[in-house]
């Protein structure tokens, strides 16, 4: 079992952790209590390489309170090499280079002590 707190602590240190069901082998991220495939609760930590490719993206021009100073910013849906997908903020990639199929790598984003998922160039 990997708690959300442990996940984000590890993510903040640059380590992206999925969990693997020790009964059926399903890989899951974000970590969760029950296996979505077989309903077992026997998870083993499964570190991910952090490498993936963009399956979709968008450039945000209108932001909620707290993010207005950051627009425009991009987010992407990323298919990880290990077969799961993850959403994250795009960093250090020019908007005109964004495309479906672009290779990216996990990059932690920590602001106000809270870590979120980001992706930068491979």
């Amino acid at each position, binding site marked *: 079992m990997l708690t959300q707190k442990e996940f984000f602590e590890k993510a903040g240190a640059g380590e992206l952790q999925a969990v693997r069901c020790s009964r059926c082998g399903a890989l899951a991220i974000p970590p969760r209590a029950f296996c979505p495939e077989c309903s077992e609760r026997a998870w083993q930590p499964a570190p991910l390489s952090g490498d993936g490719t963009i399956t979709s993206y968008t450039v945000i021009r209108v932001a909620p309170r707290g993010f207005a100073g950051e627009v425009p910013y991009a987010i992407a849906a990323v298919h990880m090499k290990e077969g799961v997908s993850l959403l994250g903020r795009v960093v250090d990639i020019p908007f005109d280079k964004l495309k*479906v199929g672009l290779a990216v790598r996990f990059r932690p984003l920590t602001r106000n002590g809270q870590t979120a998922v980001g992706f930068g160039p491979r």
Partner: protein
Amino acid sequence: MRKVALVGAGISKFGVRRASYRDLIWEAGKACFDSVAGIKPRDVEGLVVGSVMPERTAFQSHISSMAAEALGIKPSVLSARTEHMCASGTVGIRYAYAFIAAGLADLVMVLGVEKLNQPSSDEAILNMGTGVDREWEAAFGLTAPPCFALAAQRHMAEYGTTEEQLGLVGVKNHTHASKNPNAHFGKGATLEQVLGSRMIASPLRLFMCSPITDGAAAVIVASEERARALTDRPVWIRGTGQALDGFQLTSLHEDYAHWPALKRAADAAYTMAGVRPGDVDLAEVHDCFAIAEMIAYEELGFCKKGEAGAFVAAGRSDYGGDVVVNPRGGLIGCGHPLGATGVAQAAEVFVQLRGQAGPRQVADATIGLTHNNSGMGEHVVMIYGSEPA
């Protein structure tokens, strides 16, 4: 199960309203009671209120009791609030349906209400962000428009859907709204205006998005015996389906151009109703963003997967086409006061199937469908008919 029908419906004016949360409840409740002779508030046995975030926007919880008192209803069977983000109102109609079908109630009002506009617009947008996962999505600045922008970008990459085709959904729904005096927007829109409007989250521009809107809507749901005594034109609930694949977008490992939960919800509703997609005369679908309407065409079976762009471009989702989609103006034209939306869609189907929709009337409409999503992986579908199943 017993047969169940709508016997009354009413909506408030939708828009940026100088009205309190309670004023909106009064307005829709009064319009609903005015629509059906022979029912007074004290006759109603139950009230279900769909509302998402009055705790944040009106500093008020305990909503169903507050609304019942405001409308002079004394529930004797059912009193509840439903919160399911953008599907809250329709989820409330399903509760009323189930109680009546099971024989636990005969007459229930379902009211949806939301007061979303705030003195500052960035707070209103922040509030909308409560509907996505705090730790996994909102934490890096994700709100609703970028979620659907991801679906749009994916649909464009996979099927060659164009910005112009997305824009045509905006044109159609703004144009429909211009014939609806209760809609947020009344001026219509040209393709040039839509494609020239400000970018919100690429490729979605302002006129392809639903605005931040205040509003309320109400319907009265009745058992067959009560319905036939109250009106000669009940609008029957023929089928309903709901299916969820997941809450977090990041947990949906299917690509975002495919919404399998919508197909499952629709199949359940079609089977229960005994109708096929080609039988639907009008559909009030959840066009929170233009792409959502387009993917709905596909998953509801109005066209093949990937062909939504050509479908809207050929006018097949407009008057004179295969099915009139969003005749009241949709969420893009009417606005999207979350809890009120599903109930307002039902109210539109109610007037359409009774032939009372005036300049918006879909000719000879006998089957109407409503759809809500509350995220790309969560869907609810209702099918109504002028005759019972």
